[in-house]
């Protein structure tokens, strides 16, 4: 037993009031859905949290009509007036931050430390940021200030509220109205956001939330009166959406999968690089599209870095997501857990060496230990397929050119990380890496002012920053 054991420090659940069932949020009102309701569970315990309505295509149609009707009013408001609503929403998010963080951790399984210190503050920051743009669109230099109309948005389960903010904040700032479908395993914070819209007196129909599974999403994306489709999720579904939208005049942005290289040079600040590796792949249980899932480490420091990494991983605290000292929470769903398991098993059977720190997994819920594969070659599946879990593949390289070659040798291109104390090398690498985001001596760092998006199979279009406005303006 360790000398200094941390006692359990659970965040209180009392701040959230989860109702037994939730309806759809259409035209400013909560309404029943026509489909069969589904349940959302706490992935850390498998307990049922609530029943949630399923929106049928008729329900989606009502939502789109409400958004269309609201579009007239909303787009006609002066930008400064729209900004007031967005600022109000941002402030309410800050006021209800604890509630939102607890709700997010309950529904998603992510540690409260992350939902409290990363997700929710970034959500508020996004609304603040785009509120600032609402009356300055003419100065954005994008060649137009007119909104597109109704945006149909489909978001994933890994950062439920944050992805909502990335989608809704710029859409509203530009004068669009939205119909948003949250992921079926994590609808609760989106429904809490619906309540925040009411609290902020947002005109009815400006934001509509329709819950459900893939069919609901398809109805949103395929609705003929939707002018803009924005999707974040898997490359597989992204392809289906691209096909559905092709031949229509809908504008489309896709933010899809990734298999990012985190590149550690021999002159890196080792302790901070190790932190960056941990943050790159174990942040949010690796449920991050831009996760640094491929560690490319210079062969001359391979052993040293691996040893430091193993030592560091043995201090990670896995368990109750609501415990304030938890570093690694639960896998979001049984389905995702099965996928991580099968891809990891494949890695082992293909000949890579698997390692995890000694780590007790809770009996109930969906859990996977932090896992490192060494002896990984470019040709291994675990070096190519997105696992979307806490699984790191370690490869080596000899020269900067080889690092670039290996980093780019993937169908994806969402992000990359460079660790070196040499500034000129950072610039040289960043010029050559085909990735939407290149982090230097940091990883998984997000800011509303910074655009985010991918190359190749990681999607197209940019979200965040000035560039994020373009997707919601008629330019």
């Amino acid at each position: 037993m360790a000398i200094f054991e941390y006692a359990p420090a659970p965040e209180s659940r009392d701040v959230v009031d989860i109702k037994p069932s939730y309806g759809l949020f259409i035209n400013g009102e909560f309404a029943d859905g026509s489909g069969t309701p589904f349940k959302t569970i706490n992935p850390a315990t498998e307990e049922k949290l609530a029943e949630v309505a399923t929106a049928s295509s008729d329900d989606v149609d009502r939502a789109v009509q409400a958004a269309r009707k609201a579009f007239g009013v909303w787009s006609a408001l002066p930008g400064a007036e729209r900004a007031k609503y967005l600022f109000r929403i941002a402030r309410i998010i800050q006021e209800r931050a604890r509630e939102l963080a607890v709700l997010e951790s309950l529904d998603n399984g992510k540690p409260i430390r992350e939902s409290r210190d990363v997700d929710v503050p970034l959500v508020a920051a996004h609304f603040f940021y785009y509120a600032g743009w609402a009356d300055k669109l003419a100065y954005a230099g994008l060649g137009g200030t007119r909104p597109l109309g109704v945006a149909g948005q489909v978001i994933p389960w890994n950062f439920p509220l944050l992805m909502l903010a990335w989608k809704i904040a710029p859409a509203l700032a530009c004068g669009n109205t939205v119909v948003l479908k949250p992921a079926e395993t994590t609808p609760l914070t989106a429904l809490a956001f619906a309540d925040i819209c009411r609290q902020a007196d947002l005109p009815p129909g400006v934001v509509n939330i329709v819950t459900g599974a893939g069919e609901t999403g398809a109805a949103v994306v395929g609705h003929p009166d939707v002018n803009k489709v924005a999707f974040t999720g898997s490359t597989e579904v992204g392809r289906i959406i691209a096909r559905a939208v092709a031949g229509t005049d809908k504008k489309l942005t896709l933010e899809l999968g990734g298999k990012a290289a985190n590149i550690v040079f021999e002159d890196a600040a080792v302790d901070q690089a190790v932190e960056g590796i941990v943050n790159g792949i174990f942040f949010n249980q690796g449920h991050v599209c831009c996760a640094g899932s491929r560690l490319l480490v210079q062969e001359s420091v391979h052993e040293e870095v691996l040893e430091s990494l193993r030592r560091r991983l043995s201090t990670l605290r896995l368990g109750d997501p609501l415990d304030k000292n938890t570093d690694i929470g639960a896998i979001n769903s049984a389905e995702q857990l099965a996928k991580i398991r099968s891809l990891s098993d494949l890695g082992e059977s293909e000949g890579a060496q698997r390692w995890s720190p000694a780590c007790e997994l809770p009996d109930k819920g969906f859990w996977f230990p932090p896992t490192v594969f060494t002896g990984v070659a470019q040709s291994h599946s675990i070096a190519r397929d997105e696992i979307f879990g806490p699984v790191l593949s370690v490869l080596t390289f000899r020269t900067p050119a080889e690092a670039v070659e290996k980093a780019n040798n993937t169908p994806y291109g969402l992000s990359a990380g460079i660790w070196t104390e040499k500034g000129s090398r950072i610039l040289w690498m960043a010029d050559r890496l085909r990735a939407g985001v290149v982090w230097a001596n940091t990883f998984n760092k997000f800011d509303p002012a910074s655009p985010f998006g991918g190359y190749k199979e990681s999607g197209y279009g940019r979200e965040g920053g000035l560039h994020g406005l373009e997707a919601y303006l008629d330019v």
Partner: protein
Amino acid sequence: MTTSLTDVASSDTALRAFLHGLPGVDRVGADQRAAMLGTRSIKTTAKAQAIDLAISMVDLTTLEGADTAGKVRAMCTKAVRPGGDAPKVAAVCVYPDLVPVAVEALGGAGVKVASVATAFPSGRSSLEVKVGETAAAVAAGADEIDMVIDRGAFLSGRYMKVYEEIVAVKAACGAAHLKVILETGELATYDNVRRASWLAMLAGADFIKTSTGKVSPAATPPVTLIMLEAVRDFRDATGRQVGVKPAGGIRTTKDAIKKLVLVNETAGDDWLTPEWFRLGASSLLNDLLMQRQKLATGRYAGPDYFTLD
């Protein structure tokens, strides 16, 4: 020491090459890591345990021009019996001329006597004076010597001078333990903190200590983190364990517990004892006692219920 490190201090060039060959420290990353560890929530039984551990690690310090025998005696009394059933502190830390007073006041109570030496706090004197002062403090009964490095020499790149001074002072210490104060607030960069840590350890320091307490910033969490990484890596490389003492600016129980979390998650269990980790402080002790009583009784007593010594 492993063979690879025996020649490191053979010349100014070799020493310089070694220290500059250490991995750099990225300031942003180090600050973030320290801040993240600062969010650890230490409650109930863990807090009680941490408070007692922290008390047992305190180097209760008075380093004022106005120090008197009376002041030191009073502090020694508190060091042995801080209050209630709280454990005794690790050591008292005084100026060299007051060492005999502390030795007498503590008797055989098991609290060590530490003395600053080497023209503390600036270190601006000749090596003869520094060695002489050290020898005098040890002769007067000091168990531990807290020396300062020559920051001027360090910042001007004369690492060998700093090294040789530490070696000379260590020799003058005899059986007494040597804590080497880096004065990290004057070294300014984290790279310098790492280099100075290694320099002190190579020269024979038993402990590396952040600060004199006379310069701000002093024992910040990132600096403590970097020094803990240094002692961890030094033991990996040489097999020799060196202690760490953050000092200066640690005033609250929260500050102290954050330091223990840094130890726990950086260097690990082997450093979680008063033998290998100390907290240099004066007002901290009363806050620890106050929080200790609050945990036991559920109520805060006012400051007048805790002695000012």
